[in-house]
């Protein structure tokens, strides 16, 4: 017999069983959860890992001499190793625990940014950034006299890379943008932009909040300098995330917040600080969250990146065919499947996104409506808001059918 290569498969029905929250009716209909871009649901292994931690091993980390503290410390640091593997970091000490992507970006702005930028230095952002990768730089620019510049997008919501050279200068110290657009689902060419940015002498920071749940992340292959992820977008609890940065950058950066955990020797008028990464982790960390984030990584790795990617691709192709075929529907974002993730941002002629969301909710379908924390991007696209259906590993093509039926209901009500 000929050897056959089995295509990686993902059994959506089996995956759904891992998510207790999906086993319910909402407003009399089986729940279709399409608001994963805002937060994804947690699989049972994550809930179990956290429960087990709190029921058996909970204690404060790093200082206690007792057994529970030893276990908690061990689990906390093992979780760091797991997240480092997820990002393909060269070393776990390059992973700093934070509350989420927002805190990770603010950390970089307040430490590296604060000490590296001079008046007139430039930060290159893009018009498609989430406010969390815009406001920290606005605040930093106000404090340092640095200048913000912006890369535009084209009508499909792709970065206009041809503008890069003109926007970069010897004053550009940082290029910061998202790996995947939360509002449109666009995958940005990180490695390509890194090359150009580095050639100009700039560092590169990536907001990876929306990449974590969809893509195989390799910070070394991408060539970035800072990479931020949130746990809750990829099956972990809220309030935990990671900042990855090159070891030499972390070494140079001053501490972020002061307090316990981040110190070496403390005197009344001065202190020395702990080694990287603990230098950036003042106060009692979210140990249970870290345990949950590691469990989420293990869960996703158990399914397998190839299976997740194949599933994602099938959803993208289905959505790209199904949604634009609806009369009066305008779908945003790239048209080519390989340039996007399974996030469908759309507008309906004559029906505001809030009304779409309310009508879908009445049919048990959860989507997001609004500006998605990307007001400048909405202005660039010429819409006040969009409706966004964002998929994940438990989304089926049947869910997208339900979405299309819900859209038809909205059109009937407003017809």
């Amino acid at each position: 017999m000929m050897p056959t290569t089995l295509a990686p498969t993902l059994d959506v029905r089996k995956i759904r069983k891992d998510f207790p929250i999906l086993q319910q009716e909402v407003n009399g209909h089986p729940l279709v959860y399409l608001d994963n871009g805002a937060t994804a649901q947690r699989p049972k292994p994550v809930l179990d890992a956290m429960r087990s931690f709190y029921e058996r091993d909970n204690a404060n980390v790093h200082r206690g001499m007792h057994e529970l503290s030893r276990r908690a410390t061990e689990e906390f640091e093992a979780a760091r190793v797991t997240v480092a593997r997820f990002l393909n970091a060269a070393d776990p000490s390059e992973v700093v625990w934070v509350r989420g992507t927002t805190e990770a970006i603010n950390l970089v702005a307040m430490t590296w940014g604060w000490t590296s930028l001079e008046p007139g230095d430039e930060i290159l952002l893009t018009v498609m950034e989430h406010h969390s990768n815009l406001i920290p730089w606005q605040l930093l620019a106000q404090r340092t006299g640095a200048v913000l510049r912006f890369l535009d997008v084209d009508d499909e919501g792709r970065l206009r890379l041809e503008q890069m050279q003109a926007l970069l200068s010897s004053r550009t110290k940082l290029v910061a943008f998202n790996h995947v657009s939360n509002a449109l689902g666009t995958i940005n060419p990180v490695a390509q932009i890194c090359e150009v940015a580095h050639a100009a002498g700039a560092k590169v920071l990536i907001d990876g909040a929306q990449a974590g749940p969809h893509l195989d992340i390799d910070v070394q292959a991408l060539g970035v300098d800072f990479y931020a992820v949130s746990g809750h977008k990829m099956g972990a609890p809220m309030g935990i995330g990671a900042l990855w940065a090159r070891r030499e950058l972390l070494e140079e950066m001053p501490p972020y917040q002061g307090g316990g955990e981040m110190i070496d020797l403390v005197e009344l008028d001065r202190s020395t600080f702990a080694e990287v990464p603990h230098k950036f982790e003042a106060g009692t960390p979210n140990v249970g969250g870290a345990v949950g984030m590691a469990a989420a990584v293990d869960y996703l790795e158990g399914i397998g990146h190839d299976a997740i990617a194949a599933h994602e691709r099938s959803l993208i192709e289905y959505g790209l065919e199904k949604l634009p075929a609806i009369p009066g529907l305008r779908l945003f974002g790239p048209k080519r499947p390989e340039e996007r993730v399974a996030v469908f941002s759309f507008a309906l002629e004559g029906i505001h996104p809030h009304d779409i969301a309310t009508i879908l909710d009445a049919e048990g379908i959860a989507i997001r409506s609004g500006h998605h924390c990307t007001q400048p991007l909405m202005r660039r696209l010429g819409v006040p808001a969009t409706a966004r259906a964002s998929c994940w590993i438990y989304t089926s093509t049947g869910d997208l059918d339900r979405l299309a039926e819900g859209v038809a209901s909205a059109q009937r009500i407003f017809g």
Partner: protein
Amino acid sequence: MTIDRSTPDLGSLYQEVILDHYKRPRNRGAVDPHDADIHMRNPSCGDEIRLQFRLDGGRIEDIAFTGEGCSISQASSSMMTDLVKGKTPEEGLSIARRFTELMHGDAGAAKDKALGQARVLQGVGKFPARVKCALLAWDAFQEGVKQADRESGGTPS
């Protein structure tokens, strides 16, 4: 606390008269000259309203709005402008307060004839996420009365 898991009635939200005000808003445009000019935004959802009115003889002689938003915010704006036109600012404020009570589930307000057609928005109260959409225009009106008051030197109109 208990979480309300009941199913709200979509029909009470999207009534014919609401959709009519959404599709054919009354008093849409600008008022020039004006005594109040208020720009308000709902930062959480991006809804926007610009409301202008002119006073004459102690009454709201003309009022108009422009803006972007969902059917509820647009219909509410349209009904609000219809209701307060020709009233004194105090009468308008009293209606606005009553409307806020209606949104918070006040059964008395639901029967109050002073709210006129706006009573059909009662159903919005069952959709907590949408209450702020309905209130935007009324909040803008209340701000407008304050502004007109300030600009007339604080004398009662």
